[in-house]
C-alpha cells in the first residue's frame, strides 16, 4: 500500500510523474497563453523603450542638425583647382608632376557691406587636386598661395552673391500636408501639420526648415495582429530641409529629411523607427522620391517610395 512507501520511493514517484506532466503537457489546463504573451510583449517593449528613446531622439536631433548644416554649407563649398598655368606663372622652377590632394578645414570670413548693412559669413572648404613644382617644398608654396587665393576667391563669391541675391526677411509659417508611403515594412497614408521657418529667402531661391507631426494610417501586410484588415495608426514627428529655386520661369524644389515613428498601434511598427527621405517636386505641390526605413539599432533597412502633398 501507499503507506508502506518509504520517503525515497514516494519522492521518486512524485518527481517522475510531475516532471512528466510538465514536460509533455500531460494535463490539460486552460490558460490564456496569447493574452499572457501580449502582456509580456508590451512590457518588454516599454522597458526597452526608455533608454532607446533617448538614443533615438539624440540620433534624430543630430541627423536634423547635420542636414541643416550640410544644406547651408553646400552653397559655399567651392572646389578650387589650381591650373598648371597659375603655378607656372608664379614659380620659376620647372613643374614636377605630382598629383596631390589637399583638404583644408573650412575658413570663415566676415564681410561687411555698408550699403545694405549686411554682414555675410562665407565658409569655404578647400579640396584641391594640383600638380606641384618640386617635391616637399612645392607643397608649402602651394599652401601659401592657397591661403591667399581663398581670401581672393572668398571676396569674389561674396560680391557675386551680393549682386545676385536680394535677401528678404526670413519668416515663419504653418503648413498642412498629406502623404503616402510604401516600403518593405508597411504602406500608409498620413496627414499632419507643422511649422516652417525660412532660412534664406530671395527672389530666386528659398531655403526653409520644416518641423511637424503627423498621424499615419498604416497596414503592415502579414504582420499586423488582431483584425486582419484593420488599419493601424502611427504617430510621427518630422524634420526636413526644403529648397526651391526658380530660374528662367522654371521652378525646381526638393526636400530631404527624417521622420521618427514615436508610437504605433500596430505592434510590428511599434518601435522607434527612423525614416530618411528625399523628394523632388513633380507637379505643383506634389513631391515624390525614395525613402529608407530603419528599424531600431539599424538592424534592418526597408527601402520604399514616398509621396508628399504640401
Amino acid at each position, binding site marked *: *500500500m*501507499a*503507506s*508502506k*512507501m518509504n*520517503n525515497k520511493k*514516494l*519522492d521518486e*514517484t*512524485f*518527481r*517522475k*510523474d*510531475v*516532471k*512528466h*506532466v*510538465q*514536460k509533455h*503537457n*500531460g*494535463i490539460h*489546463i*486552460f*490558460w*490564456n*497563453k496569447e*493574452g*499572457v*504573451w501580449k*502582456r*509580456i*510583449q508590451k*512590457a*518588454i517593449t516599454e*522597458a*526597452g523603450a526608455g533608454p532607446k528613446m533617448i538614443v533615438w531622439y539624440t540620433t534624430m536631433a543630430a541627423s536634423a542638425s547635420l542636414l541643416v548644416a550640410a544644406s547651408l554649407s553646400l552653397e559655399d563649398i567651392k572646389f578650387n583647382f589650381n591650373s598648371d598655368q597659375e603655378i607656372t606663372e608664379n614659380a620659376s622652377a620647372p613643374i614636377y608632376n605630382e598629383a596631390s590632394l589637399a583638404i583644408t578645414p573650412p575658413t570663415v570670413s566676415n564681410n561687411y557691406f555698408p550699403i545694405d548693412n549686411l554682414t555675410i559669413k562665407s565658409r569655404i572648404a578647400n579640396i584641391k587636386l594640383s600638380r606641384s613644382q618640386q617635391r616637399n617644398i612645392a607643397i608649402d608654396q602651394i599652401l601659401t598661395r592657397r591661403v591667399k587665393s581663398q581670401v581672393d576667391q572668398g571676396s569674389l563669391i561674396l560680391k557675386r552673391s551680393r549682386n545676385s541675391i536680394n535677401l528678404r526677411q526670413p519668416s515663419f509659417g504653418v503648413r498642412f500636408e498629406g502623404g503616402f508611403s510604401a516600403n518593405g515594412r508597411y504602406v500608409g497614408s498620413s496627414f499632419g501639420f507643422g511649422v516652417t521657418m525660412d532660412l534664406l529667402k530671395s527672389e530666386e531661391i528659398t531655403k526653409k526648415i520644416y518641423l511637424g507631426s503627423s498621424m499615419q494610417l498604416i497596414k503592415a501586410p502579414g504582420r499586423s495582429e488582431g483584425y486582419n484588415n484593420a488599419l493601424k495608426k502611427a504617430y510621427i514627428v518630422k524634420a526636413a530641409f526644403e529648397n526651391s529655386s526658380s530660374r528662367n520661369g522654371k521652378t525646381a524644389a526638393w526636400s530631404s529629411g527624417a521622420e521618427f515613428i514615436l508610437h504605433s498601434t500596430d505592434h510590428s511598427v511599434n518601435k522607434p523607427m527612423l525614416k530618411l527621405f528625399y523628394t523632388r517636386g513633380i507637379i505643383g505641390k506634389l513631391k515624390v522620391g525614395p525613402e529608407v526605413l530603419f528599424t531600431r*539599432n539599424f*538592424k534592418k533597412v526597408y527601402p520604399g517610395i514616398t509621396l508628399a502633398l504640401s
Partner: protein
Amino acid sequence: MDRTLNHTGIELSEERLTRLCQQTDEKAQRMLYDRYANQMFRVCYRYIKREEDTEDVVANGFIKVFLNINRFEYRGKGSLNGWIKRIMINESLMFLRKRNPLSQAIDAADVQIKDTFQCDQELLAQDIYKLVRKLPKGYRTVFNMYVIDGYTHREIADHLNVSENTSKSQLSKARAHLRKMLEKYGIKNE
C-alpha cells in the same frame, strides 16, 4: 506552421534561440515563449492555486527572462530550460510571499484535506500532479521545492525565511499528507 520552428521548418537549438533572443529578435522571443510557456505554466501552477494568479506569475517570469537574457550564459543543452525554470520558481515564491507570508502559511498548514478529489482505481501521472496541488500552501511549497525542483533545506530556509528544521518538518508533514491521499484513493500500490 509551428511557431517553435524557423522558416525552414527546423526547430532551433536552445543555443541559437538564446543568441537570437539576446539580439532582441522578436520572432525568437515568440519561439522561446511558445516552446516553454506551457511547461513553465505547469511549474508555477504547482505552487499557485489560482490560474489567473499563475498567468500573472508566468507573465512576470517571462518578462524577466527577456529583459535579463543577456546575462544568461549558455552552458549546454537544458541550461536555458533550467534558467527559465529557476526564474519561474522564484517568481512563484515571490508571489506567495506577497500574498501571504510563507512562514505564516506554514504555521497554518495543518489543515484537513478537503475531499474533492475525483479518482478511479488508478491515478495517472496527471493525478499525481493534481495531488501536489491539493496540498496546503506551506506543505506544497516545501514539497515542490525539495522533491520536485531539487532545492536543499538550507536553500528553502533562505528563500522562505524559515529555519531548516521547519523546512524538514514541513516536508515530513507533506509526505504524510500525500501518503494519506494515496492510501485514500488506493493508488500506487507496491
